[in-house]
């Protein structure tokens, strides 16, 4: 009997211990840390591949997250860590075309951790079109459409009004003055590189100015600080002389390369300004701090000075030191204004209308954003900007 009772006691104790053990596990599950939920992995959109984005729902009380990745072998290994406020992670080490599964481990103070379930396998792939930029593409199409519309109107022979730009009206005066005085014209197409749109705009004006110097028989000096700009300048001037019907008047030495260093260049051009005493100076294109050195030296020689730049920080220097200054976009419009070709004027008109439409959209957007309290920055950040 005693044996039976002892056996029952042992069995009862074992059963109680087992039931206590069983009860303990659900208790840990219930009161312990919860694993990250809604864990998902997707190919990062609008990129060049090699990237998978993992996202999850925030877990309260977490210290940080450990992101684990499994490749073809199915074994999960540590990939990286994310901070406590993070709810997504971009794996930029994912090989394009290889399928990976991910899981997120929530790490708690005291060493506790909770592992999420694995995501479905996802492979990274490159995209051909960045859909975030659809708006930009549409805006460009709209802009081009406006230009095409006005170019067509110009082709039909319609008169298109373009407002007077004093600095460009003065080009004839400057060339005429130099011709009368028998002194050269100095043309500086900025201190930027050929990639700069300001340099290209300046070279467009150079073509028009060179045509006038060819017609008037005035000496032209075009010193350059970039070798590529130098070669293009030379072709522009040569082409302009040919276009004007005076190819023989073209002097290859009129376009020269001085030095690439901007400050050395400004010293060299200052020397030319003082020695040659040009009657008219053109400073058009992108400039740095050397703008004032050039413009002030030119000013002391008494030359008529026409400047223009898209570098907003240099505009004040030109405004105070030159007779006429083309501000920002006026520099881009200069070529069309000087040539007076209907096609170019049509494009200029279309450009202005395009800008007007953009300005209206921007103003309306700003008003709506301010009135409705919409955080535009937040919206843009979610669309990849």
């Amino acid at each position, binding site marked *: 009997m005693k044996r039976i009772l002892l056996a029952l006691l042992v069995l009862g104790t074992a059963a109680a211990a087992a039931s206590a053990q069983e009860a303990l596990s659900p208790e840990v599950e219930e009161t312990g840390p919860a694993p990250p939920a809604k864990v998902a992995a997707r190919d990062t959109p609008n*990129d*060049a591949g090699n990237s998978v984005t993992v996202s999850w729902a925030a877990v309260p009380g977490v210290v940080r997250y450990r992101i684990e990745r499994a490749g073809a072998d199915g074994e999960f290994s540590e990939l990286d860590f994310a901070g406590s406020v993070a709810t997504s992670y971009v794996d930029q080490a994912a090989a394009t075309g290889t399928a990976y599964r991910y899981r997120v481990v929530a790490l708690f103070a005291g060493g506790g951790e909770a592992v999420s379930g694995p995501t479905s396998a996802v492979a990274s792939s*490159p*995209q051909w*079109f960045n859909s975030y*930029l659809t708006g930009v*593409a549409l805006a*460009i199409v709209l*802009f081009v459409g406006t*230009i095409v519309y006005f170019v067509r109107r110009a082709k039909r022979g319609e008169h298109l009004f373009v407002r007077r730009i004093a600095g460009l009206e003065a080009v004839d005066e400057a060339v005429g003055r130099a011709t009368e005085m028998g002194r050269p014209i100095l043309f500086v197409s900025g201190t930027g590189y050929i990639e700069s*749109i*300001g340099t290209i705009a300046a*070279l*467009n004006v*150079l*073509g028009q100015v060179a*045509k006038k110097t060819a017609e008037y028989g005035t000496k032209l000096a075009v010193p350059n600080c970039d*070798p590529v700009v130098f*070669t*293009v300048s030379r*072709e*522009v001037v040569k*082409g*302009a*002389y*040919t*276009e004007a019907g005076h190819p023989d008047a073209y002097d290859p*030495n009129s376009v*020269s*390369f*001085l030095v690439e260093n901007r*400050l*050395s260049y*400004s*010293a060299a051009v200052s020397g030319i300004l003082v*020695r040659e005493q040009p009657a008219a100076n053109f400073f058009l294109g992108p400039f740095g*701090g050397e703008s*004032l*050195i050039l413009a002030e030296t030119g*000013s002391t020689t008494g030359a008529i000075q026409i400047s223009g730049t*898209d570098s*907003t920080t240099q*505009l004040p220097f030109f405004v*105070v*030191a030159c007779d006429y200054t083309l*501000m*920002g*976009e006026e*520099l*881009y419009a200069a*070529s*069309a204004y000087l*040539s007076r070709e209907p*096609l*170019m004027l049509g*494009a200029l008109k279309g*450009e202005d209308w*395009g*800008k007007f439409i*953009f300005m209206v959209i921007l103003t309306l957007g700003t008003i709506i954003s301010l009135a409705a309290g919409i955080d535009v920055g937040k919206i843009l950040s979610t669309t990849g900007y």
Partner: protein
Amino acid sequence: MKTKLPLTLMIIMAILGLTGYFMPHPTVDTLNTYLRNTLLRIISAFALILGLGNLIQHHVKRIEKKGANWRQSYTLLAGLIVTAIIGLFGGVSGDGMLPTQVGNFKYDVQTLYMQVLNPLGSTMFALLAFYMASAAYRSFRAKNFLSVLLLASAFIVMLGQVPFGYLISPSIPDFSQWIMGVPNTASKRGIELGVTLGALATSLKILTGIERSWMGGGS
């Protein structure tokens, strides 16, 4: 043909550059990077040779003709040749086959750049302070309402930058900051907006072949 070929090449390159902005695919990116970096470097290298040739030719002619200040051309040519020899045979920091140190006197390209070109450049840059003063003297004349406005704004901004302005009134630095932060920034952004849209329009005009002045106005 002389006009059509460069125009066609330009349009192809421009379209490639534009599509590169919208297409993140590595094929497009690799092609664009190659065009931008490799091809442009090759063009730049050849252009530099042309530029140097032009510089040497110009100064040699000047010496031959004994034009104005012709002796200075000797200095330029000598400097060009000596620097080229040191750079080619002495290495950038004196690690070439040509010795670039006599006792404590170093004359490698790095030293020439740091000890000669940089101080000369700094001297030129320092001249800006004087040019600014003379330009300010000329422009800050109260001739009409706008120039009075300019003069007053400049005066307040300058006072706001020095402790003396705070001594006169603690609100001067704040007002100075307001001028810089509100009216100045507003006008600057206006110009920048115009510049950005103007640059886009100019690019499109070049891309579509409407703007051809860069080819000397050739049509």
